[in-house]
């Protein structure tokens, strides 16, 4: 039965990334019908938001989902971002491991798998090509190009089936893409909830969504403030490994090791270089390519011993507590709300991050399950809603570890509360490929706890004052009822007349105090957000669909 060795290796193959992921699509987050579609929404929306942000445009996103058959949908997506130059279109949509986001910058997407992954899923389930429209600035000119493309799985490249230019007066990109084996759901894991949370976490975005029933939701932006452009942040010495240094050395053009360190890492000054040279004995003027692993390791060990300024944080751009409150208030119309944006912190010694938290209580806070409002946790990383794998997430862990009873919430799960947490970082430590949960790094969990407890104290104060006012009123009622009884019965017992007792009554009921408390409980007026919901008119369905196709975004 023995076989020859060479015979065994006749079957040896090399796969491209596309071939690999075609066999392992769950590694792209595509598992389960609902999840698959939500991941598609996630990839397209985050790409649009990132693109708009990079060029400082207020995002305006249009999505339409049409049902073509059972588990079969056509998705049309368009934005007003900078568009994609013609040469890059197939790279962005048809090549895995290609992308513009490999820098150390706060961004929503990160892997170079997003768009091409969606195209791969479409092609695997429908065999159809996708249609891309890009409008972009070419020098001073505005250019429009429409392409129909396929992904060549064996080569991990794109194939252009069709291409035509068109005139345009603005920038933006859009895609028309078909899927099978996916499904649209209103559940917490579904695409609609994903959009709703995106709007809460990105109050500057405007999203128009037309769902498969033809109902059109318009989420207007809550603010016209363009979020500042995040900046690339150089890695901090406390956060690099020997392997990172070797990798930097190999990819650099710098002539001297010290220049490489000072230019590629943050907080490394000439004085620090000197300190390192003295401590390690390594010649800092060496060519980077000649640096050995031992030397790299020695440098990293020295980094660990040295003091550096905290990592720079100007690259991190949080939403801001005011904007969060706005987002929460306008969507949830709560009885009480509060938010906080904390100062930057670092985890694992060198990666800086910012935690933002918000709490909404009462009103439409929480999730309506049956007739009861249950608490909901809205997790975000760099403003992107995290939808799956909540069990193992740092945010969940931190919130569950809080003793909510200390903040007047007897049973968190069954309270009408929404807790919002956003983690901002150039390098969010996701737990798994799908980037749906944040690793419970000690510093991050602690910071989320601190932030949430800080605002929970405000909630507690609100709940307490509200309760106290109610108690005072009940208390006064008791005296009004019982003082006359005591005095009447005493008179009967003593066999005497009932005396005048107004003064004693005034003293025991404390009326002034009650008025004062009621004043303190008043909330500022909230203007509800304009979520325009347009029901499809009662015409035959195809008509409605046709009407939408005329939308100039497609």
């Amino acid at each position, binding site marked *: 039965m023995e076989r020859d060795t060479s015979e065994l290796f006749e079957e040896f193959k090399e796969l491209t990334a596309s071939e690999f992921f075609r066999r392992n699509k769950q590694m792209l987050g595509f598992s389960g019908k609902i999840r698959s579609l939500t991941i598609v929404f996630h990839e397209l929306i985050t790409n649009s938001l990132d693109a708009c942000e990079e060029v400082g445009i207020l995002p305006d996103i249009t999505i339409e989902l049409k049902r073509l058959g059972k588990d079969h949908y056509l998705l049309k997506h368009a934005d007003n971002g900078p568009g994609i130059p013609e040469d890059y279109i197939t790279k962005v949509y048809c090549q895995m491991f290609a992308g513009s986001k490999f820098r150390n910058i706060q961004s929503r997407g990160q892997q170079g798998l997003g768009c091409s992954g969606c195209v791969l899923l479409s092609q695997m389930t429908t065999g159809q090509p996708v249609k891309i429209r890009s409008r972009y600035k070419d020098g001073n000119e505005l250019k429009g190009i429409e392409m129909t493309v396929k992904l060549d799985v064996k080569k991990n490249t794109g194939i252009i089936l069709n291409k035509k230019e068109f005139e345009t007066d603005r920038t933006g990109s859009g895609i028309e893409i078909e899927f099978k084996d996916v499904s649209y759901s209103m559940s917490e894991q579904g695409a609609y909830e994903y959009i709703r949370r995106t709007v809460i976490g990105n109050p500057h975005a405007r999203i128009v969504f037309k769902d498969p029933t033809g109902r059109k939701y318009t989420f207007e932006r809550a603010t016209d403030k363009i979020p500042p452009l995040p900046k690339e942040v150089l890695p901090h010495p406390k956060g690099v490994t020997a392997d990172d240094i070797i990798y930097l050395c190999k990819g650099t053009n710098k002539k001297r090791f010290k220049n490489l360190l000072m230019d590629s890492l943050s907080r490394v000054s000439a004085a620090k270089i000197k300190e390192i040279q003295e401590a390690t004995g390594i010649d800092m003027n060496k060519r980077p390519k000649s640096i050995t692993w031992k030397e790299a390791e020695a440098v990293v060990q020295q980094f660990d011993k040295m003091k550096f300024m905290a990592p720079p944080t100007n690259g991190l751009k949080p939403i801001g507590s005011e904007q969060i409150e706005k987002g929460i208030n306008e969507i949830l119309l709560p009885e009480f709300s509060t938010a906080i944006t904390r100062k930057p912190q670092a985890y694992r010694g060198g990666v800086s991050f910012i935690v933002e938290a918000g709490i909404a209580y009462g009103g439409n806070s929480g999730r309506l399950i049956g007739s009861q409002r249950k608490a909901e946790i809205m997790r975000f990383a760099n403003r992107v809603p995290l939808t799956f794998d909540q069990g193992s997430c740092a945010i969940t862990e931190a919130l569950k570890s809080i003793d909510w009873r200390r903040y007047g919430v007897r049973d968190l799960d069954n309270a009408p509360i929404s807790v919002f947490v956003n983690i901002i970082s150039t390098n969010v430590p996701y737990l798994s490929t799908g980037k749906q949960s944040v690793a419970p790094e000690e510093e991050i969990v602690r910071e989320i706890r601190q932030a949430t407890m800080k605002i929970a104290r405000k909630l507690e104060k609100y709940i307490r004052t509200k309760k106290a006012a109610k108690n005072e009123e009940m*208390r006064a009622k*008791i*005296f009004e*009822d*019982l*003082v*006359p*009884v*005591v*005095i*009447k*019965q*005493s*008179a*009967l*017992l*003593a*066999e*005497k007349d009932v*005396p005048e*007792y107004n*003064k*004693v009554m005034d*003293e*025991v009921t404390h009326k002034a105090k009650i008025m004062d408390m009621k004043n303190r409980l008043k909330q500022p007026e909230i203007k509800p957000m304009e979520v325009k919901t347009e029901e499809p008119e009662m015409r035959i369905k195809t008509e409605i669909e046709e009407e939408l196709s005329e939308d100039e975004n497609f």
Partner: protein
Amino acid sequence: MMKHKEIALNKLRGMGDEVLEKILQEEVPSLKIPSRGTGNIIYNQDKRYFELGERKGTRSLGNVKQIKKMAQMMCVGNFCKELVNIQKTATMREMYYVSEGWDVGFDNQQESNNITEDIEVTLGVSRENLGLLPEEDGASVYGDITLRDDDVEFNAKKLGKSGYTIPPTIDDVEFVDSNVERIIAVETMGMYHRMVQEKAYDRFNTLIVGLKGQAARATRRFIRRASDELQVPVYICNDGDPWGFHIAMVIISGSAKLAHVNHDLATPDAKFLGVTASDIENYDLPTDKLKDIDVARLKELAADPRYKADFWQTEIKKMIKLGRKAEQQSFSKYGLEYIVDNYFPNKISAIEGKPIE
């Protein structure tokens, strides 16, 4: 009208007056109520029973938790005043229903019981003297004692096998005549009937009292009066366990809960006959294992001032060491008559220093 009932009426009037006075002075009225908390229940070494100390609590019209109780006290006061005036009695349950018509009711029976007790301690008048009676009848009594209740006279040896039942109104019953030499109280009715069947009343010339478990107020009052008025020794024979011990001790030295009336209920000269831990050993009785709760209770008793006598300390320690308890009726192991033929004569003779049959 009896004198103690007149006193009660005056005190009730005074309680109303106190509140009115303050109102007239435009002050917030309050009542001082002797505390019934454990800290204010004090064992009087000389009198050999519990009584209330000097500590008092305040019930103020200005306190949201106290005003309702204050109103209830006034209503109960007026109800009692009427009962005493027309010379009737009512049960606590009846008052609870009558209170439906009041300006402030009770949430439950327990609440009305508490308020009644508040009035008892505040005025220093027992509920019986305020016309309020418990529902429960007292013990059964068999033996030669002649009593008079209203106009009726009768002897407790001539009332059938079940004997005389002590009514809640025992204070209205007159002890006319008796020639017994002693009183023996037993915990269970089984033992009571055994003693009647074996003619213990004649053989020991005794009253037999069937306690039916923890002795009712009426039973304790009867035993106290019998002890005082007949001038004969009282013996108590119960199950040999912490609960049996304590049924006896409540008859002897009163309960903490009724510290305010123990001066009328306790019989400090009564003696516990058994079943003791020594009896368990000496008579090799069938036993049950002490449960955890029994041991815990025994340890509580050992620390209780009422049990500080050497006799009790020794017996409690012995029982814990044995780890066993025994019922009164366990003497039946030796035959039904054994307890009357042997145990009682032995134990009582030893105490009295002479044969009793």
